[in-house]
């Protein structure tokens, strides 16, 4: 049974959820994915009974929530709040093409479950469990790793927008050499004609 593919990335969806959690001051968060979307359980400040927030996989909901987002609220486990942590986690989950995720927050750890595709020898792609326990240090390392990944992706995107001959210096040199040779050749061809024209004039 495979879950339907969502049009938004985990980074987008989890950042959106994180912003909502931060703005409401929620804590003790659990998030599990079903075929229909992400189910979020969290406690509001001072409330003993957790709230359940079911977020259906409708494009508009996430897009609307993505627009105005305040900065993350610092949390004992997440220095940048839920938004910062969940966005970073989502980025890494996207990169590993994870699916069917489950995130459970404890008082001093977070567990992350899911599945990820792996290439099996001669058997194509199979899915393997992705199970991680993150302590506070791991959370900080994860955020740093996700930031580094974002920076790398930015650089890759910039390079992709730059014409390839400029991106690679050796190509530029070769190109300049070719242009120079072509200009010389053209000049040699043009010069006698111009002389002829002058003579005729």
């Amino acid at each position, binding site marked *: 049974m*495979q879950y339907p593919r969502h049009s938004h990335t985990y980074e987008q969806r989890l950042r959106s959820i994180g912003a909502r959690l931060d703005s409401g001051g929620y804590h003790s968060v659990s998030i599990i994915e079903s*075929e229909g979307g992400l189910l979020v*359980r969290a406690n509001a400040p001072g409330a003993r009974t957790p709230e359940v927030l079911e977020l259906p996989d409708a494009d508009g909901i996430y897009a609307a929530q993505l627009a105005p987002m305040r900065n993350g609220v610092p949390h004992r486990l997440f220095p940048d709040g839920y938004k910062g942590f969940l966005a970073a986690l989502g980025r890494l989950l996207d990169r590993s093409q994870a699916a069917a995720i489950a995130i*459970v*927050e404890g008082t001093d*750890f977070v567990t992350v479950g899911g599945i990820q595709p792996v290439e099996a020898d001669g058997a194509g792609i199979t899915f393997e469990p992705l199970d991680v326990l993150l302590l506070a240090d791991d959370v900080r390392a994860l955020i740093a790793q996700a930031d580094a990944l974002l920076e790398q992706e930015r650089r890759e995107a910039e390079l992709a927008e730059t014409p390839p001959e400029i991106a690679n210096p050796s190509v530029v040199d070769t190109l300049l050499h070719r242009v120079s040779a072509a200009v010389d050749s053209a000049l040699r061809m043009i010069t006698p004609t111009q002389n002829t024209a002058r003579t005729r004039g």
Partner: protein
Amino acid sequence: MSVQSIMFSEAPGEDAFPQHLVEPTYQNRLRVMGRLIDDERLHSITLIEVAGGFVLRATREADPWPVLIELDDRKIAKMLRRAPELRGTPKPYRTSTDLIPEGYENMLRALGYELDQRIAENVVVAELPSLLAVSGFEPVLGYGEASYRPFSDPLAPSDIVEMIQRAVNRRGSYQHIQSYVPPNFRG
């Protein structure tokens, strides 16, 4: 909300309906859910308590995509009523791993007892390959009304073996069970 809702059940006699098995304690509720997990050959569970029941996320044999099973209070109550019939019947399958040595029913029943003892509520159980992360809320008793604080216990395989051993030691010396009954189950 008071946390002093302690019920005392009678020890079951030969012919008496084993009322203590159907009370909606964590011990009983987690036990019947564990039985379901064993019967359905599920593993790698995440069990989240929500208002009105539990959501169980688990993986089936030979299918890496997890399934989500909603177990509302009504469904759990039915399972509890069936529990006495099923007691002692052989199970077709029982997980046996370092973390779950004798199946989910045994492990979750033992865990449930300990959760009842600490008057826990709103629990989450997340299974990882090498530990079981148990979270929830427990009362902090002060001068006035109890306030609740979150707790988390990462249980290693050795902790689980000890927990099950404690449960085994309790068997055979049935005493009156102190059971915290959640508000939604009170009459």
